[in-house]
Every structure is written in C-alpha cells, then in structure tokens.
C-alpha cells in the first residue's frame, strides 16, 4: 500500500471507501451504512497516515493496534483493510453472505489480521487498554487506537475502562468517539444524552480533544497530539455526521441499520463520483 499524509489524497481514498460501503451493503441487503459512513475519514487517516502497520506482515509484534469497538460499522473497516491489501477488494460484495470472510460483524476467525471480534457494544476500550498495558510491559512502541460509537459509550464498562485508563496512565491508547449524534432508536440526545461529553472524559482524567471528524488535517493534528501526550490516555471526541457523504442518509436515524435499494445505491454513487 502507498501511505500518504496528503489531505487531498486521503480525501479521495475516503470517497472510494464510501463507494465500497454503500455498494457492499446494498449487495448484502442488510447492514449499517450510517455509522460506517461517519467514521470514514477517521479510519482512512489512521490506516494511510497514522498507524504503524504492514499488510504484508499483519502479525508484526510492534504494530499499532486498531479496534473497531462499534463492530456493526464493519463495512468501513473491511473496505479500508481491503484497499490496504489485507483482504481482497473483489469480494467485498460478498458481505454477510454464507462463507464470506466479510461477516456481519468483524470476526477474527474469518480475517486473522483483525485485532478483535467485535459486535457486542461497550467492550473495545477495555481491550485497547489491555493491549496498551502489554506494550508497556514489553517496552514496545506499539499504540492502540479504538473507535467507539456515541450510543455505545452509554455502556457502563466504557466508564470503568475510562477510570482505569487514566489511573494506570495508559498513554499509548487513543480512543476516538464517533460523535454522530444518532444511535439505533433515534437521536442520542433524546435517548440518553451524553453532554457535556468532552468534560466527562476530561473529568475522568483523559487528555481530551474535540474535532470535526471529517476534517482530515484536524484529524491528523489530533493524532499527533495524542502521540505526544504522556502520562494520560487521549480521547478524541470527533463530531461527525451519520451517513456522511450521501445526502439522503445524512443525519437521518432511519439509515442506522437499513440497506439501500439498488435505485438508492445509484443515487448515492452519483453523489460519491
């Protein structure tokens, strides 16, 4: 794969990833477009610029770890890993079909290069902290990055992990909250509001940044600041738009877990041309 720091190159990769996402979910006839599309810039910036990883050597012990804790957004991770060369691009459209490596939620049994099987929400932050602690014991430069959903962080385990991470100064862990404002049943503010979210993380002892989660230079800057922050883990509260890039999906709870119809795919691909 060709790494890059160039925001306009990253942004054209992001557009390609979005095309994969809507296409594969349409082919599968089920899946979660909204939360896949909201995390595209975050994952593209991580995989092409930030993460120390090698698709040719996925088990390199000193690699950085990435965990998609909100596992239902698997299509964004699959598209990114395929474009990086971990897995075939040609079979992305077998998503969710019998025998496909592209399972409904990330499954290490089918893709060993994944760091974790996820799908039950609320668990990935603890996993990342475990990986961060192991790297410290091994004196490894490895860092762990974990993307959390905003609905997901209503789980109590997230806040147990948040306390733990700050107390144990696991500064090689970076959590990113995909703050798209929507969960399954509707808007987060109507279901169980999180605000003031950045203040919560700060008061739990995390170095906390707030950014526009679609602004690639801002994302790059935030990851650089996270890496430079010692003595505290970092949480990036990334303000995003659920369904980003497809006008009729944007900020509409309906598109949390519904697949586009072929005619809707056509419209979406036009917008993503």
């Amino acid at each position, binding site marked *: 794969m060709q790494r890059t720091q160039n925001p306009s190159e990253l942004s054209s990769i992001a557009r390609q990833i979005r095309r994969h996402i809507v296409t594969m979910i349409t082919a599968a006839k089920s899946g979660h477009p909204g939360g896949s599309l909201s995390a595209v810039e975050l994952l593209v910036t991580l995989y092409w610029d930030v993460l120390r990883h090698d698709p040719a050597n996925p088990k390199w012990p000193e690699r950085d770890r990435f965990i998609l804790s909100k596992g239902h957004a698997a299509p964004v991770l699959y598209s990114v890993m395929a474009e990086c060369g971990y897995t075939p691009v040609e079979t992305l459209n077998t998503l*969710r079909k*019998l025998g496909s490596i592209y*399972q409904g*939620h990330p499954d290490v049994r089918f893709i060993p290069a994944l760091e974790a099987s996820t799908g*039950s929400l609320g668990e990935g932050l603890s996993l990342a902290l475990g990986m961060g602690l192991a790297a410290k014991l091994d004196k490894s430069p490895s860092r762990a990055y974990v993307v959390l959903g905003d609905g997901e962080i209503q789980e109590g385990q997230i806040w147990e992990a948040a306390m733990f991470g700050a107390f144990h100064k696991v500064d090689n862990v970076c959590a990113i909250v995909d703050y798209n404002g929507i969960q399954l049943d509707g808007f987060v503010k109507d279901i169980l509001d999180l605000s003031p979210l950045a203040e919560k993380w700060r008061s739990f002892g995390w170095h906390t940044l707030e950014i526009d989660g679609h602004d690639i230079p801002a994302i790059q800057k935030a990851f650089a600041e996270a890496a430079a922050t010692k003595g505290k883990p970092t949480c990036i509260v990334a303000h995003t738009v659920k369904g980003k890039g497809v006008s009729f999906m944007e900020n509409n709870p309906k598109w949390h877990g519904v697949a586009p119809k072929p005619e809707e795919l056509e419209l979406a691909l036009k917008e993503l041309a």
Partner: protein
Amino acid sequence: MPANVKYELKLGAATREAFGKTLAALGHENQNIVVGDADLTKSTMTTYFAKEFPERLFECGIAEANMVAIGAGLALAGKVPFVSSFSAFVMTKGFEQLRCLVAYPNVNLKVVGTHSGISIGEDGPSQMSMEDLALACALPNFTVLSPADEVATEWAVRWAAEHVGPVFIRTGRVKVPVIYPAGSKFEIGKAVELVSGTDVTLVATGLVVAEAIRAAEQLEGEGISARVLDIHTIKPIDEEAIGRAAAETGALVVAEEHLVDSGLGVRVAQAAAKTHPAPIEFVGLTDFAESATPDELLDKYGMRAENIAAAARRVLARKK
C-alpha cells in the same frame, strides 16, 4: 390439543412481534405494566408499547445491566416491569444483576430476550444467543418460557404479567409457522403433545417445534410412529410427560436452537434419568455460527426436520 391433527404450519408472525403486540394490549389492561428497553425498541418490538404508553416506556440506552437493575427497582416499588433486549445482551450483560437483584430476592421482573438462536441470520454470532436458556435456568426462582409460535407467545407474555415472580421469555427474530389455533390455552410446566406416537418421542422447543412436526410426518412415511412434545416451559420442566414418553416410546430425540450441552436436551435427559431412563439423541448447536440468511444457517447447522428424523433413526437403532 387433539393428537394426530394435520398441521398446516402456515407462516405467522415472529415471536418477538407477538411479544410486542401482546405487551401493548396488556398495557391497556394493567396500568402497572412498565417497560424497559436498551436502544432496540424497533427490534424487540416494544415500540408498539412505546407508541401507546410513552410515559411507561423507559428507554435505558445501550446499557443492559443498568436496565435490569432499574427494572428490579421498579418491581420492588410495585410495578410489573418487562425489560427487553436481544437475548444475547440482556442475559449476558445483565446476568449478575439478574442473579443478585432479581433471582436471589425473588423480584417480580419479566425479562424478554429477542433475536435468540442462529436464525437471526446476517448479523452473526455476536448477536446470536445460544446460551440464554442455560443462563436463565441457572437462576433460581425464574420461570423460563420458550414459545414456539405467535399464539404460544401471546399466552406466555400474558402468563408472565399475571404471575408474581421472575420470568424469562425467549423469542426469535424471524417469522415462524403457526402451530396453535388462536387463543389456545396452555398450562405452565405442562408439555403439549402435538402428535401422538409410540416408537419414539421428538421433544422440541421454540422455532424447532414446527420442524419436529415435519420430522414426525417424514417418519410416519417410513412406518415410524413419532410422538411430538412442545416444551414451552423449560423451567419447571414437565418431568411427568417426559417420563411417560420415555416409558411409552422407549426413545427420545431432543431438538433445540441452543447449545446442545446446556439447554433443553440436558434438562430432558435429567428428567428422563429421574423418571424412566431411555436412549436419547440430541439435535442442537455445538459452536458459534456465522453470517448468512436464516434459512441457510438453519440448514447448515442442522436445525431441520431431516436432522431430527435422522436423529430419530439413530436413537431407534439404539433402542433395545
């Protein structure tokens, strides 16, 4: 239920749908019924209740353990709470709260797990509950129900609302065949003999009951007379009906969409061991499944009439 009727097995509603509709109807009849859900009202179908009684539906967000504990608090204060989520989440994340705050003090909470089994399909193993019956049966004081169709589900939900004490009801995502005439009456802890037979008994629960009926029809064509028992109450289990089936037919097959080592099968074996030991074959799940359509998974993981009929032939070969 008359034995040896022919079953049409027309596709009806999903059991989660029957749960949601019954709950909304109950909301009118009993002002004390309140509901908790964890960001899945559209999937568990508590959305029907939410529409009619928004002030009695507590949306807990994605926080199942807290939801169970809040439900226990509501029950302790005199309400009749139903809490619902995917079985895979409410029973696992809520288990410690179910144990200490509900089972142990015998609190009047009703837990309804939806999306049980592998028949949820494409979402895959993280959302598939294969151990919910094991967990629920591990909770003293709980009554554990596993209805096979929409009619049995309506009864189960209504029974739970009347009963004072903790109840777990297992429901599924996909539409299932209707077995029972509307309004059928069931008795808690009493198996239903759906098909009478003398050579072997097919014991089943949930979505697999319809497959057991079909298996009995296949076996009949081979001259094998198979009895079919629907175990809608997993706990307390009907030891009398199981013992009688073991004594009268001399061989059992147990079929369930659950881990075979910890669900209905082990309970039927225990009941038979206590009453009338007989050879038993077990049809169920042995490992995590995967993503595919519900039908593909039910085929691949052996939840079909053919699998039950094959197990019947095996157990008949073992019968002395």
